[in-house]
């Protein structure tokens, strides 16, 4: 694996894309995911946010119809529009939280893997401690302490993911740090930062991409579950978990209120998982099972 990432990167990515295209499930994931992301980006252009908040009591709790595709909620708001605008929050929370934990994980993982010693020991023990706290619990405590809003929710769910990224990156660096080509780079006068960025990290880009897609899926679910508990994004702001929490009240008269937001979560996480699986196989065909 080490060698074939060192060959021309341009050709490498073309090759990965060629293999990825052959996997129908990965392509399905990519298409569905793209639709979700495009919908989230252009939500405001499609239907203004004010529609998602507009109450219309006389038509409350209606089932799906031509006018209201996914029906209406307890205040007569259009559920489709709420899910559409909810996608902005749910997806960006998942993506931003993943990116932040990856970023912090990269810094610490690279530093401890590269420098080792006492620093490595201290950081890894802190990571062990963080992993001994159940992720949901830690997120709950952080949101409760800092207050329920989007930024705090993102902080809360990212922290619990940091140890996993630190471990992956540290392990990858330990695997190559003693190899001759790193020594050669040193001899060639490259600095530590340059060596990490250009000689070590490209080796684990594949693993990281796969981890990132899977983590995003997990964090979308975790954010939804926190909002569902009332410790995250709070109603009336639409977020998929918050929509499910509102749906709880009307389970008997209006089950559609829980079906559609749930399907939105399932489809987005499923597409991320399928894409992640496809990428893993495409990046390293030998792992294909």
């Amino acid at each position, binding site marked *: 694996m080490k060698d074939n990432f060192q060959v021309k990167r341009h050709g490498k990515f073309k090759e990965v894309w060629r293999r990825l295209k052959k996997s129908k499930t990965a392509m399905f994931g990519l298409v569905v995911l793209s639709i979700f992301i495009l919908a989230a980006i252009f939500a405001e252009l499609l239907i203004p946010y004010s529609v998602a908040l507009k109450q219309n009591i006389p038509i409350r709790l209606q089932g799906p119809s031509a006018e209201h595709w996914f029906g209406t909620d307890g205040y007569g708001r259009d559920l489709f529009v709420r899910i559409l605008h909810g996608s902005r929050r749910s997806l960006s929370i998942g993506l931003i939280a993943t990116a932040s934990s990856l970023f912090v994980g990269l810094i610490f993982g690279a530093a401890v893997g590269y420098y080792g010693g006492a620093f490595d020991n201290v950081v890894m023990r802190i990571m062990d*401690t963080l992993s*001994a706290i159940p992720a949901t619990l830690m997120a709950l405590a952080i949101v409760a302490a800092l207050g329920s809003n989007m930024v705090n929710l993102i902080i809360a769910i990212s922290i619990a993911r940091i140890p996993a990224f630190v471990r992956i990156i540290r392990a990858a660096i330990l695997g190559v740090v003693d190899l001759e080509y790193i020594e050669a780079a040193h001899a060639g006068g490259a600095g530590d930062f340059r060596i990490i960025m250009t000689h070590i990290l490209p080796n684990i880009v594949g693993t990281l991409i796969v981890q990132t897609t899977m983590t995003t899926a997990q964090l979308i679910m975790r954010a939804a579950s926190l909002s569902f508990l009332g410790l995250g994004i709070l109603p009336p702001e639409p977020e998929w978990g918050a929509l*499910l929490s509102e749906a709880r009240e009307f389970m008997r008269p209006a089950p559609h209120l829980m079906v559609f937001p749930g399907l939105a979560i399932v489809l987005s996480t499923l597409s991320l998982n399928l894409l992640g699986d496809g990428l893993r196989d495409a990046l390293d065909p030998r792992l294909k099972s």
Partner: protein
Amino acid sequence: MYKYIFKRLLMIIPILLGVSLIIFFILQLTPGDPASLILGAGSDQAAIDQLNEELGYNRPVFVRYFSYVYNVIFKLDFGISYRTRLPVYDNIRGRIPVSVMVAFGTIVFACLLGIPVGVLSAVKQYTALDTVPTVISLFLAALPGFWLGMMMMYFFSLKLGWLPSNGVGSWLHYILPIVSLGLPYAAQELRFTRSSMLETIRQDYVRTARAKGASERTVIWRHALKNALLPVITVTGGNFGVLLGGAVVTESLFNIPGLGSLIITSIKIKDVPTVMGCTMILAVMFSLILLGVDLLYAAVDPRIKAKYSK
């Protein structure tokens, strides 16, 4: 071996101290003081001050942290709940078995479903017996457990009236929570078993077993499965630990009086001692389970056992 166990047990101590430190200081960021929470917002300021003084809340935060740790370690005293004003441990004690029951039931359900189907998928690779479970498991893995719980509650409790939807009166009450929590985990067990099994059945010793004339059944279920289960054990142990504290959402959905639902209510009303107590209990159980998994590893794999006894 004993030396290894002892060493591992010792290593749990700093981890627990770290966990208590992190959670304690996160919870300190919560606005408000305990006496106002206990007495209610509109109460007499003098009474609030007096109660805060009694609870020791006016001491510096580090003093409070160390006295908390001291009380927990030397007196097994987790403090007084702000809500019930009873010792925290009394509130928690009755809930531990409920949470363990849910987590254990979920893991057993997930393994009983996921592992055999996973083995079957691997043995019958590329047939319908492989693709159908694999596709289903992909969907299940993408399902949030609490949503599955809501849907099942709707169908089996509200529509069909077959199963109770909340509380823990009888074993029937455990079915919906365990199945809805367990299906996504079963999917994970299936995927791990399948890929581990696929690797194992291509190994030389499995071919040797076949060559010696062992029946296909013996080869798969006795020879191959034993080795293939190793990675599955790790995942299962980790899941068990996560489930103990992570069933929070499902517990609150089905009104199950476990640790998870206690944590939720306590966090919402800022009952810091109760949250701390639950967290510490969960962290202890989690660490012990991880140790148990490693020991189980040694029991299953003599190579690992040899490494430990050095």
